[in-house]
């Protein structure tokens, strides 16, 4: 992975900041911590190590395919955030897929007078809910370009709150 010496030092500092704030990040975190100890002496080599460990964490968490495409532009901290939170978004996607499947089936039975076009549009609206998590994740990548990692973290965490698949957890009163 290419690094230039100008940004190498900054990147390793970000990685160490992530390690301190989240002590339980597993093998990737300890790798970044070890790399940080030699940060002052060899910024280039350190950045290299941090990137490797960050990539390890990211790929271990079964991320979607969005992160690798952005890896040429984003920092290591951003990659870790994308990997960890991306895994949760993947779970949300599965959850909303199941919910959309349920409501789509129920609507097929109960929808009577909405007509063909209305029925198709209603199905599209239900199934678009299954795309909510991937689209929110994608929009965070698009909007966070050129902004601080904090912006993307906040945006992704907001998405996790808004897109919580409640119908999976709470028995409905509506149906």
């Amino acid at each position, binding site marked *: 992975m290419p690094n230039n010496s100008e940004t190498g030092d900054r990147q390793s500092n970000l990685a160490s900041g992530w390690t301190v704030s989240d002590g339980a990040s597993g093998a990737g975190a300890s790798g970044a911590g070890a790399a940080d100890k030699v940060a002052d002496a060899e910024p280039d080599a350190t950045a290299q190590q941090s990137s490797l460990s960050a990539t390890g964490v990211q790929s271990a968490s079964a991320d979607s395919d969005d992160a690798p495409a952005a890896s040429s532009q984003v920092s290591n901290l951003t990659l870790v955030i994308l990997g960890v939170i991306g895994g949760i978004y993947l779970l949300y996607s599965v959850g909303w897929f199941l919910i959309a499947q349920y409501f789509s089936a129920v609507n097929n039975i109960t929808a009577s007078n909405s007509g063909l076009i209305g029925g198709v549009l209603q199905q599209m*609206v239900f199934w678009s809910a299954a795309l909510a998590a991937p689209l929110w994740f994608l929009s965070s990548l698009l*909007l966070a370009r050129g902004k601080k990692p904090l912006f993307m973290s906040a945006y992704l965490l907001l998405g996790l709150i808004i897109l919580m698949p409640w119908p999976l957890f709470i028995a409905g009163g509506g149906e």
Partner: protein
Amino acid sequence: MSTHEVNKGKTALITGIVLTALAALLFGYQLWTGIGNALVFPQFAASIGLAVNATGWFWITVQIALPIIVAALALLTARKRGALVRGVMLLAGVALVSVALIDIMHLVPNTSYFS
């Protein structure tokens, strides 16, 4: 700018326009169902000797307002970006409103609309 880059820009533009059109259609349908509920629910309530109460009107208003607010927010966040980003943001907005509508449909009992 090379031919390849021009084609790439054109593809992004067309994709963005298609996504925007799709999002506009689905936002329109979401708004339409909200307005439809506002028109039909009072009739339905009257037919069973009840009326739509404050709770009912609150949720009907939310269903109408959500697509408008979310579409406005999506356009606002994408206002300085290209057509592709705008299309993705609008479609994400549609999906977000769908999620909210399903949440409301699931969590708020229809019977609480009438009294």
